[in-house]
């Protein structure tokens, strides 16, 4: 119990310290600005495109009304968190390595554990901020577009709010782990995007080529991604299920369970690496 209290105290202190470090950082300001504005309003740009789309794509109402708006807005958030916030997380860690402020922080009296907990607190804070933007933007846009609103409909989410938050923590932890491994900002960013968009997909397809089984869906990035899955995949999944013999999407329960296993595992691995290496 005392240990949990200590971690909580260190986390709060870490957040205050990280705020001092980054509240005047222009790159962070730009990225969070783009994220907030882009994530809040990008879905509205669909009004220009969607009317031109033909079936089987769903009609305009599906994207902006409850309960389906949670899926579509969540999917936009999935991309934006992965790209923008993943990038900023890499920057937050590798920037400290390259400027040697991590080293100076330790010299000044921070323990490695304090530093690590501070970065974890940042991950949780960013994930919570992104989730807040997700919830607020979805509620506002959904309420404006849905004609017949009642509370059950409003929050008919199948736990997507928590899954969105876990997805954010998952992506940010992955970015943090990769930053810890490579430490150089350029290499870490290339590897992060390379892994998320290319490498794991290639590995999964290679696995599928040799062993056709659903186990190919349980790779970490895919689990994180499927916490808030691409709603458009629900259409082709019907045909893909016939071809593959299984759906290309994890169920929300599966992604949640494995998300809850992978995320702490990624964080623990980052801690083991961080603890062992010279600074």
């Amino acid at each position, binding site marked *: 119990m005392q240990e949990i209290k200590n971690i909580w105290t260190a986390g709060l202190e870490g957040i*205050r*310290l990280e705020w*001092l*470090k980054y509240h*005047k*950082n*222009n790159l962070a300001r730009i990225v969070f600005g783009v994220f907030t504005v882009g994530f809040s309003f990008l879905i509205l740009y669909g009004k220009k495109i969607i009317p031109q789309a033909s079936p089987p794509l769903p009609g305009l109402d599906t994207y902006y009304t409850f309960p389906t708006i949670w899926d579509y807005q969540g999917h936009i958030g999935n991309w934006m968190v992965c790209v923008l916030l993943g990038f900023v997380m890499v920057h937050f860690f590798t920037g400290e390595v390259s*400027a*040697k*402020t991590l*080293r*100076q*922080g*330790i*010299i*000044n*009296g*921070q*323990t490695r554990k304090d530093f690590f907990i501070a970065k974890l607190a940042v991950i949780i804070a960013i994930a919570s901020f992104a989730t807040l933007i997700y919830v607020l933007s979805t509620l506002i846009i959904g309420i404006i577009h849905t004609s017949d609103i009642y509370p059950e409909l409003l929050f008919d989410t199948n736990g997507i709010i928590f899954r969105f938050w876990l997805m954010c923590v998952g992506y940010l932890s992955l970015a943090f782990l990769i930053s810890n491994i490579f430490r150089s900002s350029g290499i870490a960013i290339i590897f992060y995007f390379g892994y998320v968009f290319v490498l794991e997909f290639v590995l999964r397809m290679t696995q599928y080529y040799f062993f056709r089984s659903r186990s190919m869906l349980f790779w970490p990035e895919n689990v994180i991604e499927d916490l808030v899955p691409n709603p458009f995949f629900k259409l082709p999944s019907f045909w893909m299920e016939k071809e593959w013999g299984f759906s290309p999407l994890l169920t929300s329960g599966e992604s949640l369970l494995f998300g809850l296993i992978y995320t702490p595992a990624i964080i623990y691995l980052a801690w083991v690496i961080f603890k*062992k290496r*010279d*600074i």
Partner: protein
Amino acid sequence: MILSINELSKSYGQLKAVDRLTLEVEKGTVLGILGPNGSGKTTTLGMLLGVIKPLSGSFTWFEGQYGTAHRKYIGATLETPNFYSYLDADDNLAIVSRIKGVSHESFDAILDQVGLLSRRKSPFKTYSLGMKQRLAIAATLIGNPEVLVYDEPTNGLDPQGIAEIRTILKSLADSGKTVIMASHILDEVEKICSHVAILKRGKLLASGPVGFILNNDQFAEVAAPDMEKLYQWLSGKSYVSDIKSQNGFFESKVAPEITAVDINKMAFEDGIILSYLKLRTRKLEEEFIELTKES
């Protein structure tokens, strides 16, 4: 005892960066860690400051009274000044202050001490190297720590910058704090430090008070209009040895009881008019070269 190091070692592959270093630093000591490039000075300080993991051995700060929080009671810089480039002096010092758990009203006195008051609101990235180094020294003073550790504090600075930093360091050393300073500039160490530890290839060659490290050898630098006659005269004196021709004068070791007046008088009595005469003790630089050459 402020610091006690016991058999501390660190290797990078086959290279032994620090080899079983044992050393003690008492309160109020101003210790210069001397050594050529690659002698293990920075690695030693890195281990003592918690950023490099020792291979073996141990060290204890403040006899263990602060536990794992001991670094909060040390003001230290390692190699380059490390700050957030987009933040100004106040913001950067506020971060240091937060880490050390020191409440601060203002950094006026500290910034004034290092001459940065007028630039306190400029981002760190706009500072010259000398200003960066001075801000690093200011950061080490936060919380009025008992111990100050500096690693090559005048590295890369121009002569004016070196003089400024040296003046600040001298005043800190004179204030009674324990100062540990790594340097390969022997003159700097000789001027500032009370004690030295000499490292080479990770091994401790010698340590102790500066006066103890320097032996009692006395050197005379002499010149005369007739240098050949002077050389013959010097060669014939029993209290003179190791005569070396330098740029326009002879340098030789002389017996400790001989004074400049004695040399001048004896030369004059033997018909030699000296145009230059200087008597000095051995310099740290000469001792250092001698020690590192022997090893």
